[in-house]
């Protein structure tokens, strides 16, 4: 299969590094508005051709798969063009700026017999996959609730809150936090299914260019409930995932490799917390070491992106079901849509 990328910025590096390792996949071309950025990526990843116009690339290379890794507001038209050129599309999150655009995109994909897949990389990190595996085997019990909280300082002057160059994500409803909603929604969807209702609180804790820097949401979903959150002030940086099952509970930090389980034990009940604590301590020590070691090699916290791409290409090659289906993408984005701030949502300014 021939793969091509549109957008050679930050996240493209992970896509390129991963696709270069996939059997049967040839990185055929890369496109970026900046000629130097496109050429540098082509040199670094030994890509035979680079372009500054995506339509020229699509016509010249005729790729089988196009990765859209540009800023979010450009995703829709680039993905549409790629579908028209006969390619499957793997698009970075958020797939589109609005749900209407996503509906149009998925409809067009169906019409031309191609797939559109949005990247939900954290769902494919080792920890969520291990929890899902235990749920699948019945060991975990039915999930009653999932709690996801991203603590990430995005208020520094070099990132989303750069006063000199407004970040493209600030154009999304919800501003910078909207960039993270697909992560929250995709994890909730993976554990408790499509949502039925969502109650949100958007607030601003510190002065900055961002419209919001705190977000909380309670979701009622088909198979359970979820609480989802983002905090730009809570430190240190972490990506907490807690899943509560009828037999077990799991805790993971997706920025690290930490994953612990707590469940039934064949010991007298008063001793259970003691043995659970010992096992949890041992798991955390092992995770500390592996988190350190993975800094030297591999994709780090992007391990899920590599797994997601590998599974997606495998499925595209064999005609098997995709790891993320169009129905998943629509369900996740319905949840995202329900989480976005609307005029009806009271914006609470926290006077800190």
């Amino acid at each position, binding site marked *: 299969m021939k793969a091509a990328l549109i957008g050679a*910025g930050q996240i493209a590096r992970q896509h390129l590094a991963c696709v270069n390792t996939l059997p049967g996949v040839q990185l055929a071309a890369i496109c970026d508005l900046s000629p130097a950025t496109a050429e540098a990526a082509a040199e670094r990843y030994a890509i035979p051709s680079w372009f500054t116009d995506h339509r020229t690339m699509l016509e010249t290379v005729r790729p089988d798969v196009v990765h859209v890794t540009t800023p979010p507001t450009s995703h829709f038209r680039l993905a549409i063009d790629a579908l028209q050129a006969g390619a499957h599309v793997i698009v970075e999150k958020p797939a589109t700026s609005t749900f209407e655009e996503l509906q149009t995109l998925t409809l067009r994909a169906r019409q031309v017999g191609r797939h559109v897949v949005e990247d939900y990389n954290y769902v494919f990190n080792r920890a969520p996959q291990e929890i899902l595996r235990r749920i699948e085997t019945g060991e975990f019990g039915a999930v009653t609730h999932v709690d996801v909280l991203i603590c990430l300082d995005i208020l520094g002057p070099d990132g989303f809150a750069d006063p000199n160059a407004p970040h493209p994500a600030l154009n999304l409803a919800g501003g910078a936090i909207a960039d993270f909603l697909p992560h929250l929604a995709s994890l909730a969807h993976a554990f408790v299914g499509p949502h039925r209702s969502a109650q949100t609180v958007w607030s601003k804790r510190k002065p900055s260019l961002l419209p919001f820097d705190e977000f909380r949401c309670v979701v009622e979903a088909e198979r359970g409930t979820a609480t989802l959150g983002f905090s730009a002030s809570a430190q240190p940086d972490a990506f907490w995932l807690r899943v509560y099952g009828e037999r077990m509970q799991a805790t993971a930090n997706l920025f690290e490799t930490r994953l612990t389980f707590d469940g039934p034990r064949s010991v007298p009940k008063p001793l259970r917390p003691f043995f659970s604590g010992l096992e949890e301590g041992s798991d955390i020590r092992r995770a500390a070491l592996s988190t350190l070691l993975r800094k030297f090699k591999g994709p780090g916290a992007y391990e899920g992106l590599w797994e997601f791409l590998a599974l997606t290409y495998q499925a595209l090659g064999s005609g098997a079901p995709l790891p993320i289906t169009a129905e998943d993408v629509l369900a996740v984005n319905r949840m995202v849509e329900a989480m976005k701030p609307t005029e009806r949502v009271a914006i609470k300014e926290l006077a800190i």
Partner: protein
Amino acid sequence: MKALVTGANGFLGRHVVNALLARGIAVRAMVRPATRVEPLGWPASVDIVRADLRTSRELASAFDDVDVLIHLAAVVSGGEDAQFAGTVGGTERLLEAMASSGCRRLVLCSSFSVYDYTATRDVLDETAPLQQTPDVYSRGGYTVAKWWQERVTRRFAETHGWDLTVLRPGFIWGRDHGYLAALGQQIGRHHVVIGPLTRIPMTHVENCADVFALAAADPRAKGHTLNIVDGPGERVWTYLSDYISGTGKRGFRLPIPHWLASAAVRLAFVTVFRRATKVPAILTPKKFDAMLKPLRFDNRRLRETLGWTPPLDYQQCLARTYGPSPAPAEALASWSSGTAASTSAQR
């Protein structure tokens, strides 16, 4: 003569503005939109244009009436991609704007980091081998961005027939920028000094700025690539001693011979880190060499081409770096008449 200076409020840029004014060259200073220019104390004659090379849509008007572009702007913080987008993407946008203007003269601030230290033997001068693709991509974000910035600039200059001067400063030091990567590894207040007798390719920021102003004004600079070092450079141990005594940041110094550290880094690289893709800079042989390889440096070509000698000697540089800050009146003394650009500078 009018010069457009990008990155004008940066560590080097603010001194380049001073040096241009001292030579009677009119300055248009390009600064980012959120920059506070008042603390810089520029006179009213400095024409300030606010733009961010990464995003500003209209850059062409910045070149109105400009005779020479002095391009210093670079992103030196953030990740590798942020540095590339800011430094290289920004240069592309800037030079596209220049191509639509009447300005034909360009002085680029490149860097010693474009040289391949590992392949260089004995003397690093303008004839030393440069980084090559794809090896350059293992040298880290700053090097990749500066290497590409020079590459892009040379292509534009060749396409449009511009007069280009590429200046490659060594380690630039000065007030609040005394600590250099060439000193080894800092651990808290303590220092692991690798190769204490190694000489540092260094230029004090005011000397370096003087070269930029001279290159902008002197037609003999056209078409040349010149390294900027003040001389053969101080030895690491001497410079570190002056840094410690100047800043008062006392700590232990552990000297390690360069050959021993180099052997250890190379051994670790081929054993422990053989399959690693992300290794700290000092443990990567090419980056280790770029920071610490004992080479000789000289500024012969700079002296011969422009007849330049550093205005400040090492002792004067130390005084400027670690001594009391010059009073505003003293700092303004060499400038042409004009009221200060900012109210705070007038106070």
